[in-house]
């Protein structure tokens, strides 16, 4: 009898010890749920990007309605940081420390993503697929392995414009308006390198602070350079200001527009105010535009409309940032799937570091999402598009946008 009790006690001890040896569960994940969090600018200067949050959430809700990923439903909490990095920090800490999110996802903005990078890496919280293409984030994987952006390199985007202008108008005189952040500076670097020794010249450049109020003065200065080409490496508010100001000055340069500002609703405002400038403007694209008749019969567009109707009924279907949100959410879902049923933060990061996804239905054909431990840029290919004052029309084959 004593021996039997001793044996039972020993067995209990073994079981208890075994339980104690299991790795502690990461916050924000249970056998049936995983909690993601992020910040997006629903208000403020960059509210135009706001739909990336609701768009992504709608896609997660659609996936949840079909059973989730590896048996887990994805919850996604996003807060409005008004594009203010100080608020991004505050709200991200809330997400990690109070809401106990498993990972931070889809943060919008370079300054915003940089502001939380140190903290999230110290906490070993995955910071995945930030809406960013800066060198500061894309080339710092060795020091900040927990942080990965989503967009193609801003330098690469600038280089695409540079190569295009060098090929098509080798005598171009280029003026550049750029945001004095990684976004603008990286694009300018890419452009400068791409045209070096090839004919086109940058004859003037003016920067603005993203906390500034107006770029009218900068445009007036750029006009005096007698440039025939204007590259606007700016977020939507400043892009519209720039176009309206150039129109008022009767300046008619050929426009190249940073892809962050080409959403059809934003272009519609620019077109209403300066049609002579927007007609023929060039930019790059990597996602399909659900408003483009070319994709009328595309299955992804049909799926998008269904998801919007069921899971984001108050959202504007024509707002391409909803579509972008779904593009990134699709990628996150596949990354979680790849991480497997035993979901940990380290496992999610390993999955993100080895993506090879050729069929994201929201991306333009031929664009593949690929990463490695040394390559933290999922997107590296784009197409050049031309605006005809109705639609963006494809103007090139697949182009490499590596910085």
């Amino acid at each position, binding site marked *: 009898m004593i021996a039997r009790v001793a044996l039972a006690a020993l067995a209990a001890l073994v079981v208890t010890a075994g339980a104690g040896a299991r790795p502690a569960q990461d916050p924000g994940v249970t056998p049936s749920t995983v909690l993601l969090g992020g910040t997006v600018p629903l208000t403020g200067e960059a*509210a*135009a*990007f*706001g*739909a990336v949050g609701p768009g992504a959430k709608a896609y997660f809700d659609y996936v949840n309605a079909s059973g989730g990923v590896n048996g887990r439903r994805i919850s996604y909490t996003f807060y409005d940081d008004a594009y203010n990095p100080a608020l991004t920090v505050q709200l991200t800490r809330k997400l990690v420390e109070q809401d106990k999110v498993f990972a931070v996802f889809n943060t919008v903005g370079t300054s915003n993503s940089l502001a939380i990078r140190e903290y999230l890496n110290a906490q070993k919280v995955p910071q995945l697929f930030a809406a960013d293409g800066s060198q500061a984030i894309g080339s710092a994987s060795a020091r900040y392995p927990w942080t990965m952006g989503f967009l193609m390199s801003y330098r690469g985007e600038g280089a695409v414009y540079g190569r295009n202008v060098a090929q098509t108008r080798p005598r171009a005189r280029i003026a550049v308006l750029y945001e004095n952040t990684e976004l603008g500076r990286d694009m300018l670097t890419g452009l400068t390198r791409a045209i070096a020794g090839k004919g086109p010249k940058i004859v003037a450049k003016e920067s603005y602070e993203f906390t500034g*109020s*107006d*770029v*009218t003065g900068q445009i007036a200065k750029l006009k005096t350079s007698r440039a025939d080409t204007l590259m606007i490496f700016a977020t*939507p*508010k400043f892009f*519209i*200001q*720039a*176009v*309206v*100001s150039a129109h*008022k000055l009767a300046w008619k340069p050929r426009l190249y527009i940073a892809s962050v500002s080409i*959403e059809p*609703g*934003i272009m*519609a*405002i*620019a077109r*209403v*105010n300066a049609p002579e400038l927007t007609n023929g403007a060039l930019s790059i694209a990597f996602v399909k535009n659900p408003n483009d008749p070319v994709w009328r019969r595309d299955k992804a567009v049909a799926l998008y409309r269904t998801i919007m109707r069921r899971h984001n009924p108050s959202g*504007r279907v024509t*707002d391409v*940032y909803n579509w972008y949100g779904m593009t990134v959410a699709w990628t996150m879902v596949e990354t979680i799937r790849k991480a497997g049923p035993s979901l940990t933060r380290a496992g999610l990061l390993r999955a993100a570091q080895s993506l090879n996804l050729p069929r994201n239905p929201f991306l333009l054909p031929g664009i593949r999402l690929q990463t490695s431990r040394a390559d933290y840029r999922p997107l590296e290919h784009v197409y050049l598009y031309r605006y005809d004052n109705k639609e963006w029309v494809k103007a090139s084959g697949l182009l490499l946008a590596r910085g």
Partner: protein
Amino acid sequence: MKRRIWTAAAAAASLVALIAVPSAFAAYTTAKLEVRQSGTTATIKATLDPNDDPTASVRIFVPTGTQLTTTQAPGTSLGPVRAIVKALDLAGADLPLEGNLIVAARGQIAPATQAACLGTVAPLASWVMVLSAAGQTLPVPAYLVATAGAQAALGPAYIQVCLPPPDVPAGVPGRATFGAKLYSAELTINGVFSQSPGAWVAFWTPYRPALGQVNAAGTVASPAAVSAGAVTVAAKKSGRAGVGAVVSGRVTQGGQARAGATVAIFGGAKANRLKRLGSVRSSASGAFTFRAKTGLFFRANATAAAGAAPAVCSAISAAIAPVPCVNPTTSGFTAQSRVIRKR
């Protein structure tokens, strides 16, 4: 000599003042209201020049005799809204806005916002124009308020919209988002107003430029008459053997002559097989004449666009005094005569 120079300078200054004063006073004179109504669907278009002073409030009285239905549930869309604002923060870009007029839910409009617009008056209904552009949503409250006292001479109720000042310095509390200066709005309102002929009258009150202070003395009224049109027609034999016809008639609106209407004349040998023969325009007296080469039976279709109607200001001047009446309009219409036989 010195005195002559001073005199000349003073004269020049007076001249400048003479030129400047009218333009300062003329900074809020283009406000215009146009209304058309079909059944209980009223389409109200309110516009003014984008360079006029910013608008602080607009109060639109519905015509006398209008029956009101305000039982719509919160969240109900009463109809689409299209607006254009000049966004001062976007280098003065025109921003086309689209959205819907929604019946406000309880608490959707902050009490302080309502009080700032209506004071202590309780509205019959509270609505919100939910407008958006480029990801930015601009909710603009609108209220339906019962008239009282002398106001009742203009109609049983008015729609009131108050707007924030767009041109005060950035950072001033209450400044319009993006420095948005509203200068055009078209609202379709379904199921609220019965059709009642008469004049809708808008009272527009501006802000003092760059100060954000309401300029009550700058208020102007702009009426919009809504009434049905009619066309009458007669035909006399003309030409050798009476083969042709002189088709004449008159276009009226609200019982008054309607000039400038396009009158299409239909004719044929059989009353039920009329073909379009041509068109004429109605004269200042509303009359028109058309010479048809053939035809026994005739009909006229009149189409009138919305247009200026100076008589409307005269008709309401007593009710709106001392507020100046500007840019009166009358609604467009289409009307069809009966088929007549030439005599």
